């Protein structure tokens, strides 16, 4: 959202200046891809690469995907590899996990992660824990993917962020892409990973285009799980975020740059494992830390980052308490103004940066 609106509003010379400050991997000018298409490419490439990979979920085949992420795949790969399921999350998630135990590489799509709650016992007790319980005899090579967190106007039961819930559990890996490169590289890495990986996408990001480098367009482009990316360098304050809120941070960073405050924006990319090293190095540089996420504040991603930075060598470098920007501690309302104010906006980040730096 931030990338596209800034580009449209601002004239070209200014865009060139801004572009220098926005961390983008160099490449062919104009190779833009939406997050949706990046995910689609990732799926297609991995399905082609390994016969054991298959996609299963509601409406993924004939409907081309509820959000069109799996568009065209049924035509290319057929019914054996792209499978429409009945609306039975607990059942098909368990079935996919059993298939993974028996040597296949399923990709399970949850239409949204809200519905994964019906299947969460299978994800945690059958997938995450089995490798450990069997002392390494039974690996579970599986990906659970789908849109996570708030969409627009879908209210409380369809807007929850499950990042903290899944990242809590040893045995799972959890990734949370922001850009199209993130989406493609992380999903491919997740499919190739022999462990259960939860891939938390975001519906609002699906339609956004991002620059894709030549490398990112390649068939073997994977992003290592557990490594964050510095989206924008800065020296005054570190903003750590994941998924859509990386974009919110970049928006806030733009505005603050105009006031002489340089923000370093860290795109986590993965929630578990968390890239502690990148966060700690950044905090040691800027001496101020703010976490930004869409999930609820209590027991969340920001809480975890705050605790681990406090326990780390970076603690002595802090010039201010670690502050969190999160979703409001409420079930998501429907009415537009209420909904907008239930989720972090750029002004929330800016206000919090000013509090951290003790500036007006």
């Amino acid at each position, binding site marked *: 959202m931030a990338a596209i609106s800034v580009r449209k509003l601002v004239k070209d010379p200014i865009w060139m200046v801004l572009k220098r400050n926005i961390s983008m991997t160099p490449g062919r000018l104009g190779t833009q891809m939406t997050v949706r298409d990046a995910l689609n490419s990732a799926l297609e490439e991995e399905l082609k690469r390994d016969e054991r990979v298959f996609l299963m979920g509601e409406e993924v085949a004939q409907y081309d995907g509820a959000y069109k992420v799996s568009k065209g795949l049924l035509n290319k790969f057929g019914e054996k590899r792209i499978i429409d399921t009945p609306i039975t999350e607990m059942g098909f998630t368990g079935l996919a996990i*059993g298939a993974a135990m028996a040597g296949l590489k399923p990709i399970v799509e949850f239409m949204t992660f809200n519905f994964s709650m019906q299947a969460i016992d299978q994800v945690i007790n059958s997938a995450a824990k089995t490798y450990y319980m069997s002392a390494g005899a039974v690996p579970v090579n599986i990906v659970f993917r789908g849109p996570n967190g708030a969409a627009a106007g879908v209210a409380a039961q369809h807007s929850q962020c499950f990042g903290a819930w899944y990242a809590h559990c040893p045995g799972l890996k959890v990734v949370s892409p922001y850009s199209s490169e993130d989406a493609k590289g992380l999903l491919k890495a997740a499919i190739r990973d022999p462990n259960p990986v939860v891939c938390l996408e975001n519906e609002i990001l699906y339609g956004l285009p991002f620059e894709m480098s030549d490398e990112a367009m390649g068939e073997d482009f994977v992003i290592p799980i557990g490594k964050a990316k510095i989206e924008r360098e800065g020296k005054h304050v570190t903003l750590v975020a994941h998924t859509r809120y990386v974009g919110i941070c970049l928006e806030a960073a733009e505005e603050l740059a105009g006031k002489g405050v340089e923000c370093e924006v860290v795109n986590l990319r993965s929630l578990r494992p968390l890239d502690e090293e990148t966060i700690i190095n950044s905090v040691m540089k800027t001496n101020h830390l703010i976490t930004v996420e869409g999930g609820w504040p209590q027991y969340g991603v920001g809480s975890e980052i705050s605790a681990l930075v406090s326990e780390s060598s970076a603690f002595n470098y802090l010039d201010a308490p670690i502050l969190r920007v999160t979703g409001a501690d409420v079930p998501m309302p429907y009415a537009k103004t209420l909904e907008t104010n239930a989720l972090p906006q750029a002004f929330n980040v800016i206000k919090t940066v000013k509090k951290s730096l003790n500036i007006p």
Partner: protein
Amino acid sequence: MLSVFARNLRTLGCRGIYQSYHINNYATSTEASFETQPYKLHKLDEGPSTNVTVTRDDALTYYRQMQMIRRMETVAGNLYKSKIIRGFCHLYSGQEAICVGMEASINKKDAVITAYRAHGWTYIRGVSLVGVLAELTGKQSGCAQGKGGSMHMYNENFYGGNGIVGAQVPLGAGIAFALKYQKTDNICITLYGDGAANQGQLFEAYNMAKLWNLPCIFVCENNGYAMGTSLDRSSASTQYFSRGDYVPGVQVDGMDVLAVKECTRFCKDFVLKNGPILIEASTYRYSGHSMSDPGTSYRTREEVQEVRERRDPISKFKERIISANLATPEEIKKIDVEVRKEVDEATEVAKTDRELPLEELYNKIYSNPEPDYQVRGCDPTIMAASH
């Protein structure tokens, strides 16, 4: 005041008829045939045969296997009472004919998945006595090196041992899915109890198995009680073999190892052509639900005793073997002594072996982790290497 279930058992026991044929006039025969109880069928025109034949060698094998499991479970119970086994321990004593009979009709490439009453299945699927008993005592020669315990034992094509009631059933449908996807002609036997039979996820699994023609044999090991809750208190319909609705079903006497074998042979053949089938095996457990349940608050001692006398799978099979001249009582006794010795030896290992060293606490959480991956221990000073 016997429960409905126990009354039915008693009647069935009285009606048990078998004939044996002498093949020759020597002391032992090479094979014999018997009649089983009739099978109840659901949406099937034909069922398994009520005439079953067994060779002498097979009969002695099945006898030995059932006796081994019975002895192993008895020892496990004693170890638990001595507090050498901790946590959960669900004994299979009384149900041996099911795992032995079914294994006799499948091969090593067929798959099995079951719930937590899994020790008998673990053994029959190829894990050694030490592998089972040392896993129960938490030692490193256990089949999961002591990291899984009673409910999490695995082997090639044996997917445990699962602790969450009913969760193994969709998993089993998934294993069958994989077997079909990979174009094998193998099947998956997916077991659950009368308690799990009411779980919603079972019906989700039946639906997908039928829809996609998965080579899955669903098996309800109906032992009459879900923990302390009898069938009539838990289930609106206790005809478990029919609960698959559009999935055909067959009910078999789970205390008759030859009937179970024949039923499984029929079902494997069926499933490879027609998609899923459901077996209800009527059986009984002598112990309580687990070692923390004496098993007497919800059923009478008379009921348990009656099953031991009239329907015990091992002693009934022994009677058949001897009366059909497949073996002499002395040969049977010899097997009993050998079994006891083998189990006792394994028990010694299970008691005296060591536990995994402490650093293993942090290992094998992930397959192929990064070389620098570390795991947090219980306080901030503990960051352990993890492989």
